[in-house]
């Protein structure tokens, strides 16, 4: 069975969702929802990890800062206690140089960091002195005169000096002083100790710090007095003011501060204030090390999201396939029907709606099949009838031509007097018969041509043609018409060198048709102009007469099958009504156009165009 049902354009299922298939959209939605849920859960978890990790860092650093502060505090307290005890004994109990020397010796023996010890009076003169390294051969008068420690001591306050570096050993030294009080609680002088801070550093360097952590002690000016990493201790580091401020804030609030550390790297730090001294103990850790567990947790989350997302994608694709399979089958069923393969059967899987739709589709396809079968039968019958009509026309035309030729020959002979003179009335009748034969011959020829056109059997012999030669030849062939109808042909004024690709005989047929029509419908003594014009890539051949023209309401039917404007005019009604139809068909086969233009009662121009052969 053949069918004229158009083929479907694609085998793919119909698309929607912005060009995306339902299956893909469904799968993406499932994946998207799953991944979004995972990302949300992951984000919340990560935030919780972040918060808890920061708390852990803060707790850890606080603990270690307190540990460091305790170490330093213990160290300084021990020194301060020793100084104060020694000062008390020197002021109240001993009150002799010999005994004071013993006190100083004991103190120096107890604290390895003490470099020198002096008891001075309130004017700053040394009363007794002891040194670990230098020879004490004589005492210096007014050595500490105008020194700030004196005013501090007079206010009964301990004094802590600035850090200095020993010129010989390059070790950091700092001066401590406590007041020496008499038994009447009067300030009699001061016990001054020069202390090597390296011993405090050692307390810091043995701290149990985690990897990357470091600890240091700073004074209120931001000077680093000690550091857990030995190579940092002698660099004479002064922290920037903003960092010092943050450290003091941290010491006040106990919170983490985020600063740039001594090495310029980002660190998290916690500071602890020393009691009685305006020093801070700071413990910090680089952020990259501090956050390593956090980064690891985030990476873990990312890996989990990826793996679960992949699993979700696979599951989503599986379910999307399962859900859309009946629809895909339905689409396939429709496509098969569209191809003319009816009766695809009914789907027996999927939702009931899908099965009902499939059943309806199958019923519809069966009805379509019946309709197509009937249509096919009707078409075959019509084609057979058309074939019979063509054969009939050809046969009739052919059968008519032979007797017409004989009649034409006989009437011609009679008109020419071949049988002698005939009565005038008889001669008129013979001439009428002769003319009628001509008309009948033309009609038969036109019918044959029209039939060939309708059945697409008209043959053409295309070749290169000179349009001037073509037109002039046509004028010559139709010269008889001009004489017969009392008109004059005016050929092209200018000879143009234009070539076209066409059939000589058929184009001559068109020209003859237009020229003869013009002659027939022109006024007496009319001049019929035949013109050739170049119009871009085409040539326009026109035939203009000054006859009555074509009625406006008939112009649309002019080039149709068996059409004539006015059949009442016997003189003019000598055509078959097929000429312009045949001419239009011929010109169309030459890729040209044929048409009519006329002025209001002045002239009528029939023209046709042909592509110029370049």
């Amino acid at each position, binding site marked *: 069975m053949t069918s004229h049902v158009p083929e479907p354009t694609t085998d793919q299922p119909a698309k929607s969702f912005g060009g995306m298939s339902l299956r893909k959209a469904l799968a993406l939605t499932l994946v998207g929802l799953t991944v979004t849920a995972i990302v949300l859960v992951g984000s919340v978890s990560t935030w919780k990890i972040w918060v808890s990790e920061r708390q852990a860092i803060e707790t850890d650093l606080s603990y270690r800062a307190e540990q460091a502060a305790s170490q330093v505090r213990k160290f300084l307290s021990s020194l301060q206690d020793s100084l104060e005890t020694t000062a008390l004994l020197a002021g109240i109990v001993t009150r002799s140089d010999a005994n004071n020397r*013993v006190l100083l010796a004991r103190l120096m023996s107890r604290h390895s960091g003490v470099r020198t010890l002096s008891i001075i009076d309130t004017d700053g003169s040394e009363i007794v002195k002891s040194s670990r390294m230098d020879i004490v051969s004589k005492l210096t008068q007014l050595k500490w005169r105008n020194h700030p420690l004196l005013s501090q001591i007079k206010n009964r306050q301990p004094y802590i000096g600035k850090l200095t570096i020993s010129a010989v050993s*390059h070790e950091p030294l700092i001066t401590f002083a406590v007041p020496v009080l008499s038994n009447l609680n009067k300030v009699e002088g001061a016990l001054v100790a020069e202390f090597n801070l390296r011993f405090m550093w050692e307390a810091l360097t043995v701290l149990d710090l985690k990897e990357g952590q470091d600890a240091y002690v700073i004074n209120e000016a931001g000077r680093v007095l000690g550091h857990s990493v030995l190579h940092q201790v002698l660099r004479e580091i002064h922290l920037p003011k903003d960092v010092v401020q943050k450290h003091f804030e941290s010491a006040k609030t106990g919170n983490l501060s985020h600063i740039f550390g001594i090495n310029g790297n980002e660190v998290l730090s916690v500071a602890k204030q020393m009691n009685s001294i305006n020093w801070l103990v700071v413990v910090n850790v680089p952020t990259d090390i501090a956050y390593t567990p956090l980064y690891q947790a985030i990476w873990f989350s990312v890996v989990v*999201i*990826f793996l679960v997302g992949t699993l979700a994608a696979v599951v989503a694709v599986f379910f999307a396939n399962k859900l859309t399979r009946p629809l895909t089958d339905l689409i396939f069923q429709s496509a098969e029907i569209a191809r003319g393969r009816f009766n695809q059967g009914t789907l027996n899987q999927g939702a009931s709606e899908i099965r009902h739709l499939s059943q309806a589709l199958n019923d519809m396809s069966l009805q379509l099949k019946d309709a197509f079968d009937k249509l096919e039968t009707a078409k075959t019958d019509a084609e057979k009838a058309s074939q019979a009509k063509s054969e009939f026309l050809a046969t009739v035309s052919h059968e008519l031509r032979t007797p017409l030729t004989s009649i034409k020959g006989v009437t011609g002979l009679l008109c020419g007097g071949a049988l002698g003179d005939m009565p005038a009335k008889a001669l008129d009748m013979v001439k009428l018969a002769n003319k009628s034969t001509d008309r009948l011959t033309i009609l038969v020829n036109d019918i044959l041509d029209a039939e060939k056109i309708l059945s697409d059997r008209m043959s053409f012999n295309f070749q290169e043609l000179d349009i001037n030669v073509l037109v002039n030849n046509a004028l010559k062939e139709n010269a008889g018409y001009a004489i017969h109808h009392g008109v004059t042909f005016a050929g092209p004024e200018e000879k143009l060198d234009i070539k076209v690709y066409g059939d000589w005989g058929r184009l001559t047929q068109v020209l003859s048709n237009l020229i003869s029509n013009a002659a027939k419908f022109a006024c007496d003594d009319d001049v019929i102009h035949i013109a050739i014009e170049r119009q871009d890539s085409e040539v326009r051949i026109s035939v203009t007469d000054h006859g009555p023209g074509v009625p406006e309401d008939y112009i649309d039917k002019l080039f149709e099958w068996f059409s004539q404007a006015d059949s009442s005019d016997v003189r003019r009604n000598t055509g078959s009504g097929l000429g312009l139809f045949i001419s239009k068909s011929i010109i169309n086969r030459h890729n040209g156009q044929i048409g009519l233009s006329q002025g209001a009662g002045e002239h009528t121009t029939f023209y046709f165009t042909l592509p110029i052969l370049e």
Partner: protein
Amino acid sequence: MSFVSEIHTSLSRSLLKPILIGILALTVAACGKDDTKTKNIGFLLGVDVFKNVFEGFKNGMTEQGHFDGKNVVYHLSAAKGDRAQMKSMCEDFVAKKVDLIVTTTNGAALACKAAIKGHNIPMVFTVVLSPVRSGVVDNLQAPSNNITGVRNPLDEFIGKRLEFFKTMAPGARRIWLPVNTNYPTTKHFLTALRDGAKQMDLELMEQEIKSTSEIIDYLGSLDTAPFDAIFIPPNPAPQSKEGYEAITNFADMHQLPIIGNTLRQVEQGALFSYHVDKKQVGHQAAYLVNQVLSSKDTIPFPVINGEPDLVLNLSKIRALGLKTDNALISFARTIIE
């Protein structure tokens, strides 16, 4: 391309690469944390008298968490004062690619400094007098060439010995000093000692002594002691067993006090010694070594000072009828009675 492969490709492009990099980074970070690697330490004993430094060093290392045979291995070499030996032993350490070298004495420090040149091996010296002047380091605060150590500040405190002596023997005036001025380290303390004598109004009777026999010969030639005390400098001849024995015999014979240089000398009859304890030096060196080994980069560590201790022979003071000063007794770290 199928839908599954589209998703796979898309996810792979966006996530797989950073995840793989992250996993790789974590793996490398985990692998790179190699704290358990055994450290090899070369220890060069310049002269045997400093073997206590090694003792103190090992104890200090243990306190710092470095256990002999577990996470640290010591390669001990004793050069017995031979410069050529020191050189070859240092080169041997370098050939063994030890992680760090510890030295005692100026000579050993200089030999190993030359050997590690061009190699990434840190060095920690001990018992070095005037490390800058002797050319071991360029400065004390931040020495370069991957070297640090424990300085012996003898030049700073050697005069203190004369102050202590003067306290015990206020009437003493002349002190015999058997010294080898050509010995490399002598120049680092002799000037300070001379200044101290001047400050304490003492006459330093310097005598050029290059060998033990010269000590024996000189002291044997004396019927009476032309000096009030004997000062033992850190030179080989007076510190050798025979040389010191000759000195103590002479001192006992003539009831002369000896100002010692080591704990052993005080134990063998010297009046006192104010010196840097060798075990304590070793302990300080261990502290430095731990700092250096803990450091990931080659950074300068400051040279630290050895701390002098007073060792007092109270019985000798009393035997010689010298003054027992309570302040000195209080200051003394060790008292022999």
